[in-house]
Each structure stands twice: as structure tokens, then as C-alpha cells.
């Protein structure tokens, strides 16, 4: 009984951690290039509705996932054009992208309210994925495995490859990178589009796996948690992976508090917990690392090549 309960809990935690892990991984690459995109929540919603609608219309979840990533990427490029080519303020533009994503996804989603999808299942044979014990490892959706692979790959890319070094150089000192011949704006465009695609994928995880249906603003602020996660992790891949699971545990507490009904605190307390803890951890991390912390030096600053 206890064993089943523990495995159940772990499977739940791994599942609900995945979208914030994905979204934060994408944002990590964007911020490493010196751009802060606060539109994560909006891009996730655009991805969520795109993935849901395409899967429902075509019956092909893989196509749904691909379109979700494309949609997230296109949404992020609106942000990209404004902040890179027009030099617009990144905080305001990112916020605009979130408001845009909420509006656009609600507009498209109004045709899909109240419909359920089958939900994407584990890619492994049911001997493993339905086994009471082995489902802990094999019983997850493909999103889970991809998210873990992705953050490890990003860590490798940033620290061990030449291209990763160039990306970091653009984020740490844009004018130097420009003067030795790298295209600062080109690299930032690529990073933003990548971040958008991954945020779109994170959104699709919500609407295709976690609760396979469409509801307005179904990502419920998880995009903001992903943004905070990048800060706690000190812009490093390893701590980001660990931090994501830490938040997964906090979010699972809410689910269990609601389900059990005899929680010590009202369920709203548990629902507010991830956000409260996020604020507290931000304070601890920031006071340890000092103002600005380990943030890329050019984070949030516009770059105008001929200016």
C-alpha cells in the first residue's frame, strides 16, 4: 500500500514538473544570449491550444506537438522583432506577449471548450509502463524523457561546445562579440525562437498529457515559476533540473491536499505555496549572489549595431 502510494506520488511529481522544466530550459538559452522574455506563460498557452486543436482535428499527436512548437516559436518571434529589430523594452514586450498569448489562445480555444483528448501515453510496452514498480521509470509520456534529455543537452551545449561559448559571449558582452564578427542579433533571434518552440512544447504537455482538454489560462501561472526557476538555478543547467523537481514536489502537495480533504491547512494555502516559496527562494539566492547575481551581464539590454 505504502509502496504504491510512494510510486504514485513520484509519478505525479515527475509529470507535473515536466512543463516547468521544459519552459525553464528554453528560457535559460534565451537569457544566456542576453535577452529576458517574460512571455513564457503566453507562449505556453499558444502552444497548448495549438497542440490540442491540431491533435483533435487530425488525430495525430505528433503533428500536434510539432505545430505547438511552431506556434510557440512564431509567437516568440513577435517578441523577437520588437525587442531586437525595434529595440523595444524587453520587460514590457514580454508582458505584452503574455497578454497576447492569453487572448489568442482563448479566442481559438473558444471552439474547443469541453472536449477531451485521449492523452499521449508512455512510448514503452505496457509490460513495463503498466508494471506497478517499473512504471516509475517507463510509465511516463514522451515529454518527460525529452525534457530530461533536453536540459542535459543544453548544459552540454552551453559549457562544452564552441557554439554555446559564442551564445554566452553574446549574452555577457554583446559589443565585443559583435566586433569580432558574430551576429549578435542573429544569435539572439535563434535563441528566442528556440525558447518559444520549447515553451510551446511545455504548453502542449499541459493540454495533451497533464489534463488532456482545453481550458482558458490552463497553464495557471506555471510560466512565471519557470522564469523564477532560471534565476534560482543561477543560469546553470544542473541546478535548474534539481530546482524544477523541487517545485514539482510543492505543486504535488496541492494536488494531494485537495484530494485527501483532511489537510492541515486550507487547500488555497497549498496552491499559493509554490509562489510563496518562489519569492522566498529568490530572496535567499539574490542575497547570496548579490545584486544581479550570476545573470548574464547584458541581460535585458537592447543592442543596436550601428547605434
Amino acid at each position: 500500500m505504502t509502496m504504491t502510494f510512494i510510486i504514485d506520488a513520484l509519478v505525479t511529481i515527475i509529470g507535473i514538473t515536466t512543463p516547468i522544466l521544459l519552459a525553464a530550459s528554453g528560457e535559460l538559452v534565451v537569457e544566456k544570449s542576453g535577452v529576458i522574455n517574460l512571455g513564457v506563460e503566453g507562449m505556453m498557452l499558444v502552444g497548448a491550444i495549438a497542440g490540442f486543436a491540431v491533435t483533435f482535428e487530425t488525430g495525430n499527436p505528433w503533428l500536434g506537438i510539432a505545430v505547438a512548437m511552431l506556434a510557440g516559436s512564431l509567437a516568440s518571434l513577435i517578441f523577437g522583432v520588437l525587442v531586437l529589430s525595434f529595440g523595444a523594452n524587453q520587460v514590457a514586450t514580454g508582458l505584452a506577449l503574455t497578454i497576447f498569448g492569453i487572448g489568442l489562445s482563448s479566442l481559438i480555444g473558444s471552439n474547443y471548450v469541453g472536449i477531451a483528448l485521449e492523452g499521449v501515453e508512455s512510448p514503452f510496452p505496457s509490460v513495463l509502463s503498466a508494471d506497478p514498480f517499473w512504471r516509475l521509470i517507463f510509465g511516463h509520456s514522451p515529454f518527460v524523457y525529452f525534457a530530461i534529455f533536453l536540459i542535459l543537452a543544453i548544459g552540454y551545449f552551453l559549457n562544452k561546445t564552441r557554439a554555446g561559448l559564442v551564445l554566452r559571449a553574446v549574452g555577457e558582452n554583446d559589443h565585443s562579440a559583435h566586433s569580432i564578427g558574430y551576429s549578435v542579433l542573429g544569435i539572439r533571434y535563434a535563441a528566442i525562437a528556440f525558447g518559444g518552440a520549447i515553451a510551446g512544447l511545455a504548453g502542449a504537455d499541459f493540454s495533451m498529457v497533464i489534463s488532456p482538454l482545453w481550458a482558458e489560462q490552463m497553464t495557471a501561472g506555471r510560466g512565471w515559476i519557470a522564469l523564477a526557476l532560471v534565476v534560482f538555478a543561477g543560469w546553470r543547467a544542473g541546478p535548474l533540473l534539481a530546482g524544477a523537481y523541487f517545485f514539482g514536489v510543492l505543486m504535488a502537495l496541492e494536488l494531494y491536499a485537495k484530494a485527501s480533504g483532511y489537510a492541515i491547512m486550507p487547500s488555497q494555502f497549498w496552491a499559493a505555496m509554490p509562489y510563496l516559496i518562489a519569492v522566498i527562494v529568490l530572496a535567499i539566492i539574490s542575497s547570496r549572489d548579490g545584486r544581479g547575481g550570476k545573470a548574464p551581464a547584458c541581460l535585458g539590454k537592447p543592442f543596436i549595431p550601428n547605434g
Partner: protein
Amino acid sequence: MRLRLEKRLEPSRSMLIVTPILSVVAIMLLGIIIFDGLGFDGKQAVWELFFTPVLDVYKWRDVATKAAPLIIIALGLSLGNQAKIWNIGAEGQYIVGALAAAGIAYATQDFTGFWIVPLMVLAGMAGGATYAAVPAVLRTRYGVSEVLSSLMLVYVSLQLLSYLITGPWKDPNGHNFPQTAQLTPSQEVPNELFDSGIPPGLLVALIAAFIFYVIASRTVFGFSIRAIGEAPRAARYGGFSSERIVWATLMISGAMAGLAGVFELMQLSRLNLGYPSGYGFTAIIVSLLGRSNPIGVFIAGIVLAITYVGGQVAQTVVHVPNATAGLFQALLLFAVLASDLLVTYRIRVTSNIASSNERDRG
């Protein structure tokens, strides 16, 4: 032929005024294309969205009712925006302000007297300011970005609201609906001033706009905010404390959001789960569209209120989904942000030879 950006020595004053107007026009044209693309009658939808609320006298009161909280919150935010301090959690401060006033209402159910309304207003402003003090402490003491902390607190305030109206403050006569008890007559202000159809919130917004205009243009405080935003280092040498500006702008914007929350509570007579309406987020658009100038913010608040009311009209007449207003508000913000380029830069057309020569000279 090549287009080149040339930084202006000073932001263009005429562009500051022209670009928001151009943005609104551009979004109307874009709207026609989008609605046609979605299979609605584009021209009619845009007409209902932007013009019906202006031309139909019966809609004016709705517009004024929605404009009031937007203007009040946006005025507060505009100070911080000028100093590049981003309070994006005004929605949370608006909710906590309303909760503080509702707390006073809960405690004064059995009392009557003229003192109750002012007490609720003060409590609401204090509640909003206290909630905004959290990101202020975190930023000045620990260096936490106010962008993330203020936003996180919105989600906390939503849960606090849900807890209070489903638990301790639930209306005992409310048929088990999650809502607070209706305000008593001594806890409310009239819904219109002297039968004029003008909601009291709009008068408050008008007075506040005047006060903010004086602060911005006639006081050292207003000057120091702009100085911190435009040249932080120079401002520090000039003896302005950036910490004090962080505190002042966050507390003022929190208090204004709380004030808007109180008037909205008095307008609706009670709190329920539908109370958080996103005014705190839309107000950010209002303050940017209004160029953080009190007069501009007042006009922008009315424009955004028109899209809310027009969105409802378009929903009933052209059957567009109710998310339309939000989408248009976001597009409007995109357009304003893009047009900022014209404010700070001049676009020069140069010949290829000239520009390559310049590049050679470095």
C-alpha cells in the same frame, strides 16, 4: 538605398503624441483583416469594438465605470515606469486592497456612520501599499527583481481571496455561494454622482490625474524619478537615492491599485470569485499607451475601457468570442512598443555608398 537608424538627441515630443494615435488606427485596420480571416464581418466587428461605445450614449456610463479603475491603477504605475521600476503585480495589490476594505466592512456590519467609507478607502490604500512593500523590501534589501516577485504575489493574492470568501468571510445568507455579504448602505458610495451618470471612481481618477500631473511637473520628486530612469548614474551623483525611489514608486502604485480595488468593491457591493478582472494587468497597457503622462493615461484609460465595452457589444452583435478585447489590448501594446523606435530614433535614408563609407570609417 538603405535605411539607417540615427539616435535622436532628445526623444521626439511630437512622436510621443502621434505614435499612440497611429497605433490605435493601425490596430483597427489590422483588426478588420484578423476578423475577416476568422470568418467574421471584419468591418462591423471593428466598428462595434471601437465606435459603438463612443457613439451610443447609453454605453458611456459603462465606459466610465471601466475606465475609472484602469486610470487610477495606471497613474500609480506610470511613476514606476518612468524610473524603470516594473510593478507588474498591480492586480495583486488591487485584490488585497479590496480585501482590506472588505475586512473593514466585515467588522462594521452592525455600525452606521459617515466614517465607515473613508475608513474602507484608507484600509484599501494601506492594504495595496503593504502588499507592494513586499517587492520593495525584496528589491532594496536582497536585490530581488521586482518584476518576478510582484507577479508571484498576484497568484498568492488570488488564493487568499478564494480562501476568505469560501471560508471565514463567506456570506451566511448567500445560499452557500462563495461570496462576501453585501455591503450595508453606510459602507457604499452612490453608484453615480448627483444623478449625472458619472461613477464616483471617475471623479477620483480625474482628481488623481491632476495630483499626479502636479507631482510629475512641479516637484523635485517627479524630477528625480525621471532622472533615475533616464540616467541612473548621473542621478546618483546628483544625490537622488535610487532606493528611496524604489520604495516610493512601489508604495504609491500599490496604494493606487488598492484605491481602485475599494471603489470596484463598492461598485459591485461584494467580493466573489469573479472579482479579479485583470484591471491590474490592463492598467500596465494603459500606462504605456498613455506614455506615463497623467493626461495621456486618462485618455488611454478611456480607450482601453472602450475596447472592453466594445468587446461585449461585438460579442452580442457579431458573435466574436469574448477573448477579443484582451487580444486587441495586447496588439495595441505591441504597436505602441514598436512605435517607440520613432520616438528615440530618426530613420534616415542613405545611399549604399555613403553607408559603406561610414562603416569603413568605423
